């Protein structure tokens, strides 16, 4: 399968391998299978796995393609929900209103504005893109699934249940009404007192948990599971865009998690970080939120960019111009995205020097985008365009993004931002960018629809959808630029602007209704469209087009390889026979994974149960206010729900741990920069990197608040550092016993292993006990979470650390119980990975102790 690519400048680049379809007749070398794959090349899939038509399948599946479809369908549901809320807003804005002449009650309008933003950004945009990522990325990197299939299913269920939780918040007095940016101090109960507002915050927290699990999984998979020969340089552009998206997600969402945990604590436990009387509480929120928020712009836009690049290449029949530079530009943007956040804060009290700096950095970030835009334009000029539906959508997206990008430059200039901030200029700008991204993703849906269903959509209806969509889009958002003097988030505006708002409202209905064409088209086509082959697009070059549509459960008929510069499949069973074609690539590891490979699992019920458990837990917690549940039956109901949720979550996690489940085996492909490390270790370290940012956010919040307060005026809460020092001793010793446990496991010394784990557990309990005594003492001195912001930072930061210790102790118990029954002597990796976590918790304490006890 190794013919050198003739013509079209492909050279050794798999992203431009000419269509595999023309190679089907080529004779195959011994031990290799054809490209594209034939149905007959595949071994029988596991027969006990329920079929697509069975409801059960969708609750138990862990297969990346199923999860991808679940993501796409669910996200489209949230698109409809967010869209209906947008219609309500546009109906309200048909005319300028006073509080007595509104359609929606004033507070209901505020809720609709906030919920529309939150749902569209979090529950629609990213999950829609990650539906494609789930489906396509493993195919493009030549993997049978993601590294941790059950965690992938878990990500989905956490996502779905977080969305349901958000829905519930509407019925608990009202959902959050302080805008999607949740600025302080409007985000604390003093100003948004409804229980539903707390639920919305908790729902977002649960969503972030889903994102974190997903980030760790994708990063581990994309770095360690690429097919032989598929180096990062050769990675298809969609996969590149997802890789960078997930890296940004890992760090940005960790900062958001810190912000949301602190906010939840302010709302539920009564800490005072963001309270009006705290020094710089509102500034703290703005920093934490926008440190996440600006990378988030690229997190939602990059997948769209990846779709654009793929679709441009396919329908111009050309490799993208300056591919290497396009990738370099994306990498630059991903890095720069973390140093531009304060351009969202020009109207706060940040000093002029830093404002100037943060005016320069956004200009810097626009440069790589210019390069990408020109690369796409030049690719069109050099290629021969076929105007199919996917191409029309991504081409439209490019135009919209150019307008969105240019209008954003105005906002990045300090003096202009003084005028534009809080107006509809901002609203129009970010809708052009964000919904411009949606436009490309809709193109992606049409592009991959034949791959996912095996059937072709109706091209006429697709083009009609594009026409109506594009007209509706511009009719909706362009007038908002003209009516820019309208104040944002408010339903009153000067009467002279009414005609523009009426145009926008008409546009909103045109844009929204255009999706009916899509839903009709795709539903009908999925059931009765024309069947398609592997590659209906002729010039599509990436690996997902070299396998049947839809791809079988295990994706490939053999082990994908790019060793010879283009895609081929090695027969796994012959890989170790030392056939001529495969001799040099056969490694010992290929031998033993063959036997396991036959039993790769695809089903587990536990991710769903964990999702349901966390839903109940968070729903119950939403009833908390100032660290107590309300009186009476309602309070008992909340408490009971939380307790039940906690039990279900913990129990199902234990069952998930005990369940025999075989993920995809470690293949001998490309794993830069983590060569030679197993999935578990890579995953643990990636998770710890995000935990560094989570604690970094907490410590940063403490430092920031203390600086605002006056660093040296701030006294540590505990008067005596000795209890803290004792805890330092206890944790250091417990780290040492975890090391001894690993040594014992590697020496196959069962009593030593059990004794070390039990010692670790006891030391951890000692740490918590000592802390409890100390907290009890402080409490009786009249110091508690809500006493002042100094006490809040002390209790919450050390409390988060204590929560990490508790999680560690639960795992220690689990490990000790299994070690007692003889586990980990053959394979000590679980003990090792747990150790990595435990030592990290130790390291965090090494900084918390001086910061909160001595300095």
């Amino acid at each position: 399968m190794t013919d050198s690519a003739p013509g079209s400048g492909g050279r050794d680049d798999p992203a431009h391998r000419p269509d595999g379809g023309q190679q089907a007749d080529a004779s195959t070398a011994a031990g290799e299978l054809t490209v594209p794959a034939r149905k007959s090349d595949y071994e029988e899939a596991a027969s006990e796995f329920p079929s697509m038509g069975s409801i059960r399948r969708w609750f138990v599946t862990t297969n990346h393609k199923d999860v991808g479809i679940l993501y796409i369908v669910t996200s489209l549901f949230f698109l409809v929900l967010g869209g209906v809320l947008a219609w309500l807003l546009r109906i309200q804005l048909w005319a300028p209103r006073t509080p007595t002449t509104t359609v929606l009650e004033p507070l209901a309008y505020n809720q609709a504005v906030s919920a529309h933003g939150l749902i569209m950004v979090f529950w629609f945009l990213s999950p829609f893109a990650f539906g494609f990522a789930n489906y396509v990325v493993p195919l493009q990197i030549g993997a049978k699934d993601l590294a941790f299939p059950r965690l992938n299913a878990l990500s989905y269920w956490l996502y779905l249940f977080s969305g349901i939780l958000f829905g519930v918040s509407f019925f608990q007095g009202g959902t959050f009404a302080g805008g999607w940016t949740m600025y302080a101090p409007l985000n604390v109960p003093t100003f948004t007192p409804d229980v539903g507002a707390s639920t919305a915050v908790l729902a977002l927290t649960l969503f972030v948990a889903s994102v974190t699990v997903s980030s760790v999984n994708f990063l581990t998979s994309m770095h360690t599971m690429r097919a032989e020969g598929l180096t990062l340089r050769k990675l298809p552009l969609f996969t590149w865009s997802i890789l960078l998206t997930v890296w940004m997600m890992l760090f940005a969402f960790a900062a958001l998690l810190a912000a949301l945990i602190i906010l939840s604590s302010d709302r539920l436990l009564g800490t005072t970080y963001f309270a009006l009387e705290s020094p710089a509480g509102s500034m703290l929120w703005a920093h934490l939120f926008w440190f996440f928020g600006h990378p988030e712009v690229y997190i939602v836009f990059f997948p769209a960019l990846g779709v654009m690049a793929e679709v441009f290449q396919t329908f111009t029949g050309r490799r993208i111009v300056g591919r290497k530079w396009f990738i370099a530009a994306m990498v630059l943007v991903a890095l720069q995205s973390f140093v531009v956040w304060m351009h969202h804060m020009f109207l706060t009290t940040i000093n002029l020097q830093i404002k100037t700096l943060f005016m320069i950095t956004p200009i810097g970030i626009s440069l790589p985008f210019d390069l990408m835009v020109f690369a796409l334009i030049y690719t069109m000029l050099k290629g021969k365009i076929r105007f199919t539906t996917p191409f029309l959508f991504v081409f439209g997206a490019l135009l919209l993004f150019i307008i969105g990008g240019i209008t954003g430059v105005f906002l990045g200039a300090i003096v202009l931002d003084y005028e534009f901030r809080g107006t509809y200029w901002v609203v129009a700008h970010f809708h052009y960018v964000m919904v411009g991204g949606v436009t490309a993703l809709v193109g992606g849906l049409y592009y991959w629809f034949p791959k996912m269903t095996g059937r072709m959509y109706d091209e006429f209806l697709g083009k009609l959808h594009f026409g109506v969509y594009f007209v509706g889009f511009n009719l909706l958002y362009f007038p908002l630029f003209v009516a820019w003097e309208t104040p944002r988030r408010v339903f009153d505006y000067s009467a002279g602007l009414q005609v523009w708002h009426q145009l926008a409202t008409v546009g909103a209905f045109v844009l929204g209704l255009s999706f009916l064409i899509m839903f009709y088209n795709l539903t009908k086509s999925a059931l009765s469209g024309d069947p398609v082959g592997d590659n209906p697009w002729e010039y599509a070059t990436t690996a997902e087009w070299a396998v049947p549509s839809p791809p079988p459960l295990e994706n490939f008929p053999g082990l994908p390889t790019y060793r010879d510069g283009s895609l081929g499949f090695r027969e796994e069973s012959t890989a170790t026979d030392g056939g001529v074609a495969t001799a040099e690539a056969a490694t010992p590891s290929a031998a033993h994974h063959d036997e396991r490979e036959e039993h790769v699992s695809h089903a587990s019920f536990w991710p769903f149960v964990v999702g349901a458990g966390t839903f109940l837990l968070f729903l119950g917690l939403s009833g908390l206010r100032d660290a107590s549940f309300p009186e009476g039956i309602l309070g008992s109901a909340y408490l009971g729900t939380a307790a039940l949720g906690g039990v279900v979550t913990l129990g199902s996690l234990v069952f998930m741990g005990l369940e025999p489940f075989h993920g995809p085996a470690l293949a001998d492909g490309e794993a830069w920069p983590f060569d030679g490390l197993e999935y578990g270790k890579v995953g643990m370290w990636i998770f710890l990197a995000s935990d560094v940012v989570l604690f970094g956010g907490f410590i940063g919040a403490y430092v920031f608040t203390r600086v605002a307060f006056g660093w040296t005026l701030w006294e540590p809460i505990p008067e005596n550092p000795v209890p803290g020092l004792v805890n330092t001793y206890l944790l250091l010793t417990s780290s040492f016993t975890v090391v001894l446990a690993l040594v014992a496991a590697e020496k196959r010394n069962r009593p030593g292993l059990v004794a070390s784990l039990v010692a670790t557990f006891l030391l951890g309990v000692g740490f918590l006990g000592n802390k409890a005594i100390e907290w009890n003492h402080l409490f009786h001195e009249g110091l508690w979470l809500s006493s002042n912001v100094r006490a809040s930072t002390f209790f919450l930061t050390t409390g988060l650390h204590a929560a990490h210790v508790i999680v560690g102790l639960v795992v220690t118990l689990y490990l000790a119980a299994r070690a007692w029954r003889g586990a980990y002597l053959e394979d000590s990796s679980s003990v090792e990975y747990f150790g990595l976590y435990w030592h990290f918790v130790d390291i965090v304490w090494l900084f918390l102790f001086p910061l909160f006890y001595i300095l």
Partner: protein
Amino acid sequence: MNTKLYTVIYVVLFVSATVQVLVEFAGLAYWTAFALIIVLSAMKAVLVAAYFQHLRWEPRSLTYLIGIGLAAALALTFAASYSIL
């Protein structure tokens, strides 16, 4: 695996934790003590990461990975704190 090496590391950590508190009571100027204490914490953290988490013997990429997370957290902390000075 070398138990003796781990024991030595553990003793060093234990002693430096004690020294850290003694620095506080030594009556140094605030910012001198501050610098010493933070340096001691950083040193202990590096020891735990290098030996207990055996980063010393792992591919350097894992160290860089954590370094990137740390850099992001420090950028946030310092830039945010500077912005209100």
